[in-house]
């Protein structure tokens, strides 16, 4: 599997990276962990002439947490770092679980969280919880910087809201609300390491015994990670009961738009959306009651 020829440059500054992407035009690609892009290049599905490496750009490495501002994760941060960071594990356990579930140990030691999102696979394991959490992406371009809700970032399989030449510099996650909880649930054919056939992220908080700000986000059952807004509305502010959770789980299943592919049939996926949504709601609720 010889790779096509390309140039590889590892700039030290964001400005230099933006200049390189602008000069390189359509032939240039940003290169983070490379675990998706290398496979695409090997299969002839991508043939960039210039790779611009993310990992040596100053200021894009690492994770910082501030209880009032939340979490900031630099674009060069590895999935293993997200999965094991003490503040992520403590305050964002569902995020840590999603990162830890992504691929296998070797890939997590190479691949980045930002790369998993920018690759924009409908099945991206880290997307559902982050969308549910209200995460934003910080984006830099030659014209300046902007912030965008992750909810509006995915435009289709492999397609994001990034304009040509723009770089995601950080993933920003708000601090967890009081008495809130989140959950990540998934199912795949090959146990731990396979790409999810279905994954679900849920967040909610409990106020006066009632669930509020319910977010249910489904992965791998539509062209992008998708909110199950009908299911969210059923639960929002309603009395918590097994029947209600069952109804919401079925509603989420109805809202999902899966296709049949190598990983699962559409019918199986629809059934699993209901199962995983129920489990995710129960776990997020239980966690909220503890927080």
């Amino acid at each position, binding site marked *: 599997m010889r790779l096509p020829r390309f140039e590889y440059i590892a700039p030290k500054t964001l400005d230099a990276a933006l200049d390189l992407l602008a000069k390189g035009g359509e032939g240039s690609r940003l290169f983070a962990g490379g675990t998706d892009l*290398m496979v695409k290049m090997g299969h002839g599905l991508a043939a960039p002439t210039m790779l611009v490496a993310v990992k040596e750009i100053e200021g894009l490495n690492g994770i910082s947490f501030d209880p009032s501002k939340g979490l900031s994760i630099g674009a060069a941060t590895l999935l293993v770092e997200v999965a094991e960071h003490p503040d992520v594990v403590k305050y964002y356990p569902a995020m840590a679980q999603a990162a830890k579930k992504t691929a296998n*140990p*070797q890939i997590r*030691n190479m691949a980045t969280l930002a790369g998993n999102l920018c690759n924009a696979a409908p099945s991206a394991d880290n997307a559902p919880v982050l969308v549910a959490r209200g995460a934003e992406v910080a984006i830099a371009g030659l014209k300046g910087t902007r912030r965008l809700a992750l909810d509006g970032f995915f435009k289709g399989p492999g397609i994001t809201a990034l304009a040509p030449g723009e770089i995601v510099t950080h993933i920003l996650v708000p601090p967890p609300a009081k008495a809130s909880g989140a959950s990540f649930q998934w199912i795949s054919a090959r146990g731990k390491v396979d790409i999810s056939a279905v994954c679900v992220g849920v967040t909610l908080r409990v106020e006066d015994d009632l669930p509020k700000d319910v977010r249910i986000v489904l992965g791998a059952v539509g062209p992008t990670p998708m909110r199950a807004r009908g299911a969210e509305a059923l639960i929002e502010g309603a009395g918590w009961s097994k029947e209600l959770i069952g109804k919401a789980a079925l509603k989420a299943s109805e809202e999902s738009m899966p296709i049949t592919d190598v990983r699962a049939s559409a019918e199986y996926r629809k059934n699993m959306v209901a199962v995983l949504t129920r489990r995710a709601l129960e776990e997020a609720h239980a966690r909220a009651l503890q927080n």
Partner: protein
Amino acid sequence: MKQQIKLNVNGDDYELFVDPWRTLNEVLREDLNLTGTKLGCGVGDCGACTVLVDGKSVSSCLTLAVAVDNKTIVTVEGLAPSGETLHPIQTAFIEKGAIQCGFCTAGMEMSALHLLKKHPSPTEQEIREGISGHLCRCTGYNQIVEAITDASGKLKADGGGGLTS
């Protein structure tokens, strides 16, 4: 155009001129003749190509050689630098019958090294997670799990010295 890189591989320093599109796997096997590291699937699924880069296990088939400039690499050859005295992980693999065809072994042992550095006394669950990025079509994995458990004991008995490489 070729780029100059410096690598430390198994304790030896190298200065190499490599094409940017060549993988670490290719450079290790073809330029340095370190053929202990295998190439299996080429897409990061099978783990046969696993090496340590700055102490972290990675798939060398998905790693560009130019992207690991100035890094420290350990391959299976680094486990037994003399070529005579085997590393406790290797001894355990032999004793527990964790090798049959041997194609997955080099990668498995590198992940075992990475795992035992992180968790010197891993549970069976941690071992199975630690080798979850490897495929072995011969052993059914049980002997490999037993070997890593055994290696953990051997390494503790000799004071963890085998984990410094």
